[in-house]
């Protein structure tokens, strides 16, 4: 199902509120893309020689990989029932908040590890 141009509404046969169409697909891909970011960071911190001088680089790299898993899992949860159904709406603040908090705390931890 694709989103058509022109007026839309619940009475428009071209628009199905349960079917998020291409915007839903784009959002699902955005979740995957976002999960790849911390995965690449974690792998680099763990394996790249230049980053191995960071104090506790194993823990830091592992934490980034865990963040990647968290982002991937939340993305799957959002679009798990079907690619066409967005769920669960009510849990989104918790899910998004956990990702934002984890990213922020990892950034703080990274800065502190570089300082000390």
């Amino acid at each position, binding site marked *: 199902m694709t989103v058509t141009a022109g007026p839309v509404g619940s009475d428009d046969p071209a628009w199905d509120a349960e079917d998020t169409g291409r915007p839903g697909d784009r959002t699902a891909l955005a979740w995957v893309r976002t999960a790849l970011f911390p995965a690449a960071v974690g792998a680099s911190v763990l394996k790249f020689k230049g980053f191995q001088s960071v104090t506790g680089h194993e823990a830091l790299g592992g934490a980034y990989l865990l963040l990647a898993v968290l982002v991937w899992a939340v993305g799957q949860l959002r679009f798990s029932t079907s690619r066409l159904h967005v769920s669960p709406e009510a849990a989104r603040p918790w899910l*998004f908040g956990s990702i934002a908090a984890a990213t922020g705390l990892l*950034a703080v931890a990274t800065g502190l590890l570089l300082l000390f």
Partner: protein
Amino acid sequence: MPEGPDGGAPVHADPPDRPGADDPSAGSQPLDPRFTLANERTFLAWVRTALALVVAGLAVTQLFGPFSVAGGRRIIGLPLIALGAVVSFWCFRRWQVIERAMILGRAVPVTRLPLVVAGVVGVVAVVGVVFVLVGHVQ
């Protein structure tokens, strides 16, 4: 009542368990899923921006050679990491504010964080150029 994304009729989607959507006293209204999905993608883009800032700071402090200025790598790298932390905490708040504005049918409030991000990155870039130039002069 806001118009649809194409300037058409007002949109009535049906997210039944949206917070506040069933509270008529709050002046709330159902949302077009496309709007809320766009807001979600913006949130994710900010998360990626935060991670990119942290990685940039990490790379500067660990991969660059030492500058002629003492602590030069930290002076450049740590503000980027701090900015990444600020962005990651802020983007969730921004997502919430936009969701609420859409539910209440209000205008989306303006934010200054893009300006802050651009400013900090610009200042860091200028400082980096100065460090490099000082190294060449010496």
